[in-house]
Structure formats: structure tokens, C-alpha cells
């Protein structure tokens, strides 16, 4: 009996270590990706050249992959880093001096090397690409330009492209 007098109180203590509050918990993640401002740069090397004299049925087509009139942009960034690119594929540019507008349906191709004909099509949806071992990625921009509603005047528009590290 003396044995139980010592052991029983200890046995009562042991289950306490397994008591847990009956709460409900959930954990969510807080996150942020910080980029170095100097690391990712987009440089326009050549603008898109639209020659209205080549229009067929009111439309001028500049092939991004084959035409020398396509625009050229270079991404300079961290070697072998992945990045995401998106762009606005359809833009209407109004005549800044009168009536009329241009409707441009952009097409874009890209490559890790300065080789336009070997480039691959980039669609407007979010796309993941990789910067080359030289820290470059090349984009060529062309598209179909509808000039059927255009009137003589001055047309200035922007092509919006967003790139960011992943």
C-alpha cells in the first residue's frame, strides 16, 4: 500500500502533459517578392515601322518573326532568372489631329539569342520565360494594323508590356 501512496499522485500528474486546448487554428502565409531595381531593364532598340503603302484591303501586316520592320526590345536582367511577361494585344490609336483611328493587333515573338527567325511566339496571356546566360532576352513586335478607318493625320500610341521576376 505504501508503494501506491507514492505512485498514484504521480500517475495523476502524467495525463496533464497531454491536455490541449480545444481551439481551432489556421495559418496563412504572408509573402512578398522584392526585386532589385537595377536588375531588370527593358530597352527599346527599334520602333515598329508601319508602311501604309503595303496595305492590302485596308490592313498592313508586319510579321514579328520575319519582317525587318518589326520592333525590337531587349530585356537585360539577372543571368538565368525566370521572368513573367504580359502585354496588351489590341490597341486602338486615335488620330491626334482629327478624325480616324488605327487598330493594331500586336503579335510578339521572343528568343534568348538575337535570332529573330528562330524566335518563338509569345501570346498575351501571362508567360514565363528565362533570361539567357548572357543576361539578355529579345522580343520582336509586329502585328496587323487596320488602317481602313484612318484619316490623314498624326497617330501616336503606346505598346504596353510588363515584365517581372518570378
Amino acid at each position, binding site marked *: 500500500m505504501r508503494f501506491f*501512496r*507514492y505512485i498514484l*499522485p*504521480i500517475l495523476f*500528474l*502524467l495525463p496533464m*502533459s497531454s*491536455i*490541449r*486546448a*480545444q*481551439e*481551432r*487554428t*489556421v*495559418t*496563412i*502565409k*504572408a*509573402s*512578398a*517578392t*522584392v*526585386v*532589385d*531595381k537595377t*536588375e531588370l531593364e527593358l530597352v527599346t532598340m527599334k520602333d515598329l515601322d508601319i508602311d501604309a503603302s503595303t496595305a492590302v484591303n485596308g490592313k498592313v501586316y508586319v510579321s514579328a518573326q520575319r519582317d525587318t520592320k518589326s520592333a525590337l526590345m531587349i530585356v537585360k536582367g539577372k543571368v538565368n532568372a525566370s521572368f513573367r511577361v504580359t502585354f496588351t494585344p489590341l490597341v486602338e490609336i486615335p488620330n491626334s489631329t482629327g478624325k480616324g483611328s488605327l487598330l493594331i493587333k500586336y503579335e510578339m515573338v521572343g528568343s534568348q539569342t538575337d535570332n529573330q527567325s528562330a524566335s518563338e511566339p509569345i501570346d498575351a496571356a501571362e508567360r514565363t520565360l528565362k533570361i539567357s546566360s548572357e543576361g539578355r532576352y529579345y522580343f520582336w513586335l509586329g502585328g496587323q494594323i487596320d488602317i481602313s478607318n484612318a484619316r490623314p493625320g498624326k497617330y501616336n500610341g503606346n505598346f504596353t508590356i*510588363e515584365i*517581372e*521576376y518570378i
Partner: protein
Amino acid sequence: MKPTIRPIVLLLISFLLLNGHAMAQRISFGLYAGEGILLEPMGLAELNFNTKQPLIFASQSVSILKQDQASAIIRITGRLDQEITASISASPTLDLNTSHIPLSIRFAYYNAGAASPSDNEIKATAIELPLGFSSFTFPFKKNLTGIPAPPPTPINSNYTSPQGTAYLVIYGNLGPVPSDAAAGYYNGDINIRVEYATN
């Protein structure tokens, strides 16, 4: 030593030995504890500051506001006749190896009682807690009459409590990002604990 004293001394020694394995914990002695409470993050279960500002650079600060699309929502389901206590703890920094960015979390609660409120409705109506609060108690459904709610029906086999739904909105401030912060992915955890109030 007297024989009657000896067991007491041994008991005290046992206490000391067990103390080495003790863990800090909060024990709820409430009748309902946390039973039947369901916590569900809605959406991506992440407070991603890049959703508010895609490119975050050194020296910048980013604030996700309550009504922003980037704020996170947690749905709480449980006994409608109970009050609940929500406690939130978060890392004071988002971390990437040895780089740290200050993080300050804020939260709001929604208990307006709408059947299936939209995210926008939850965020617009949720009541913000003052900065610095990390634990608060509120009823599942806001009492609009001003009359105290009746006491909860005791648990018995013939009674099923009606279920209520409330929401927590999590948001906050990041930064300023230190000027020498390494570029990359920073992260930290936000822990949310909910239990029935024991008042």
C-alpha cells in the same frame, strides 16, 4: 522525517521532475471549447503584398488595406448562440535568409449575419480593430436590438444549435524594405486561433 511528511516531499520532487517537460499552453475550460468551430481561408490563403504592388523595391513600403483585393478572408463557422474569441499572431518580419522586412498585421471582423456575403461586402462592412490588438471577442451575429441575447441552450441529445458564420479580414503593412535587402521571396506565417469565449 516523519512518515506523513515523506509522501509530500516525494510529491514535490515529482513536480520538479515533471516541470522539465512542461510546455506553454493555453487551456480552455469553457463548456464548448473549440468544438464545432470550422476555420476556412477563402481564396489563396495568402497575404501576398505583390498582389497590391507587383514590383516591390528596396526602401519602399506597401500597405494592403481592408477593402483591397489583396486582403485575406477567413470564414468561421460555429454555434450561433456563442461568442468567439479570435487571437492572431504573426511574425514581426518577413524573412529571406538573413534579410528581414518589417511586417505589421491588422485585422477586422464581419458578423453582420448575411447569408452569403460577397468578398467586397465582407471587406466593406468588417469592423477594424485598433492597431496593436491581437485578441478580441465578438458574437457570431451582431445584436441589432440592443437587448442582451438569451443564454445558450444547454447541450442535450435533442438539440442542435443553429450554425453561424463570421469572417475575419487580414491585412497590413510591409516595410519599409531595407535599402540593403536581398532580392527574392520573403515570407512569414500568420496564425489565427479561434475558440468559444469563456466569459
